[in-house]
């Protein structure tokens, strides 16, 4: 499950943020490491919501900083 989620999350990040897959290590932070701006984050969240058929609340959004945070979040929601 987690591996599948990880693969799909990283593929979305590569596409949305136009970054290399190698940069998408678990501890990579979207804004500091991957060069995302706040609108990029919104777009990414919209894409995640579509991909995983869920809604991410703004409250939860503030807790998401790194790629691992996203994977953990999706795992928790889908469990």
């Amino acid at each position, binding site marked *: 499950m987690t591996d599948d989620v990880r693969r799909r999350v990283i593929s979305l990040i590569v596409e949305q943020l136009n970054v290399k897959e190698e940069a998408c290590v678990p501890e990579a932070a979207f804004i500091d490491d991957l060069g995302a*701006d706040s*609108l990029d984050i*919104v*777009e990414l969240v*919209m894409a995640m919501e579509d991909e995983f058929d869920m809604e991410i609340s703004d409250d939860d959004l503030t807790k998401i900083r790194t790629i691992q945070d996203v994977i953990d979040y999706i795992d928790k929601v889908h469990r």
Partner: protein
Amino acid sequence: METAETSQTNALEGKTALVTGGSRGIGRAISLALARAGVFVYINYRSNDAAADDTYRAITQAGFSAALLPFDVADRDQVHTGFKKIIDEKGTIDILINNAGTTRDGMFARVTEEDWRAVVDTNLTGTINCSRSALRSMIRARWGRIITISSIVAEGGNAGQVIYGAAKAGVIGLTKSLAREIGSRNITVNAVSPGFIDTDMTASLPAEYREELIGQIPLGRAGSPEDVAAVVRFLASNDAAYITGQTIRVNGGLYM
């Protein structure tokens, strides 16, 4: 990124638009103008089926494309459902015209809560609801036009229209901040601010007041809905690719 230089006159061909309050007055003229430019127009309206049918027929009988999409812009659930239908049918929403508006004129000291809520709900909250619902598709497409009809009252003020003026000024503020927020995604956000236009909304004004008002207009006449629609069509086109965050006044010089 497309610029005015690379645009074609038929550049709106194949685009999809939603015109809120698109069945009557300025909204009807905008629906017709966009349809003639090759846009598929969803004509939104709330309650007047006859007027909506009439606008729909005027477009389709001339060989252009449109559909009716009734919902109340002030109701978030209805807005959501309406936009979902557009995306299901067309894939994208390219052009949003926030035109639905209402007035409940009267002296501010006597305005009831019901009246001011109705005016703010339709003019301001309706614009917020629809702009928000349109955004996802536009951001994804890296192309979009959000055009909101404001009013001369927003900038010039008018006794008896305190709430209306506040709501219409509100959409100018929305236009500017949203333009900054999503400019990087090639979405332009503009307002059009009509002056005294001949519509059902202004037909009820007393004749003397009307004449007095026209006397103050440098171009010496009331505007037509088509005068406003032409500017909206321009702003929707690629000719206006470099215009965003602006309020374009269409008022015959009544307010400068």
